[in-house]
């Protein structure tokens, strides 16, 4: 899932950075509880996540 990739890329295996990154995403308006691997692709949400990745300097390969 795109969100998981973003968190993995940012945290590089650190559980505390992963947790903080999840909170940062929530504060930016991405509520992780609403999305699972089975969720339909929402172009608006995908665009937001890609934009956040850009802002964080993360290159999401999709």
């Amino acid at each position, binding site marked *: 899932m795109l969100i998981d990739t973003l968190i993995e890329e940012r945290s590089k295996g650190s559980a505390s950075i992963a947790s903080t990154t999840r*909170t940062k995403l929530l504060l930016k308006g991405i509520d992780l509880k609403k999305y699972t691997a089975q969720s339909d692709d929402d172009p608006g949400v995908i665009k937001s996540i890609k934009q956040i990745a850009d*802002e964080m*300097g993360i290159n999401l390969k999709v």
Partner: protein
Amino acid sequence: MSVKVAKTNNPDPYAAADELRTSLSGIKPVMVLFFASSIYGPDGISAAMKQAFPDSTVLGCSTAGEIISGHMLKNSVVAMAFDTGTIKGVHADTIPLDSIRSVDTTLNHLAGALDASPLSLDPERYVGLILFDGLSGAEESTMERIGDLTNIQVIGGSAGDDLGFSATYVYLNGKAFTKTAIFAILEPSSRFDIIKTQSFCSLGKKLTPTKVDSATRKVLEFNGKPAAEAYAEAIGVSCTDASSHFMEYPVGLMADGEPFVRSPQRIDGDAICFYCQVREGVDLDILSSTDIISDTKKAVDEINAATPIAAIINFNCILRTLDLEQKGKTDEYGKIFSGIPTIGFSTYGEEYIGHINQTATMLVFLK
């Protein structure tokens, strides 16, 4: 490890700074942090504090009340001096809040002084301290950008002006600033921790903002209904009574079971204005207040029991202070910190990962 705290209510800024210098003598501070009531003119108190501590990085802000070990104060200046036993190094600069690009400039500059990039700073080694002009309305965007750039924890508060809501100031090395944040990267000499305590529990009821004006921190609709009506319905009161329940029943973003509180400020027509930004489509839990004294004491005691605390910087929301004042519990709150070198202030907003309300965020230096 050496850290000292001092307070004064001498109304003359230079005499006040001189009293603080005398009280804080005996250590050679690398950093002096101070919080001053808005009765002190901004230019005078900042210049006086730098003159008193010319060899230290001197930073601070105006307040809506001050905190020092054992006491909650008004119309005073409190200060904390850190020597190299507590803080190995400090790099501080301003972030002008008129352009979000300033965040990148300041963080790159400060990290560069440590031969690092903001992202490569070790979160176990460094911590960020931030003080905002509390009337800037720029906390959310600034904290988000800082969070984009670095993994270090950033904690702080928004300056106050004793509920005047006319002008708040941040101070760095003798100068006073508005529309600015002061950002410092600290390298504590020992381990450090963060306390975030907000004395609320979730009622299990949710409001989803469905129409929001982010720029003005205003929610127009919750759950597809006028915001004031939906909020009043959720807490079981009439629309006309809703605002009198704001302090007791704010709302919160739930992250890992922990609320990030968003406090309603006032009703504007059918809308509700908040003290911080609310995002469209992100569920908010309705919160119910619990006991500030016992919750705060528990949070401090838990850390102190695991590793003795050397010092605390406490950013305590003005709404918590007003609640404590209403209940006659300010002395009890101050006493939680009696045995611990502590300074803090009553803020117009607290910072930890983002901008939050009705919370105390504390930077805890461990022995």
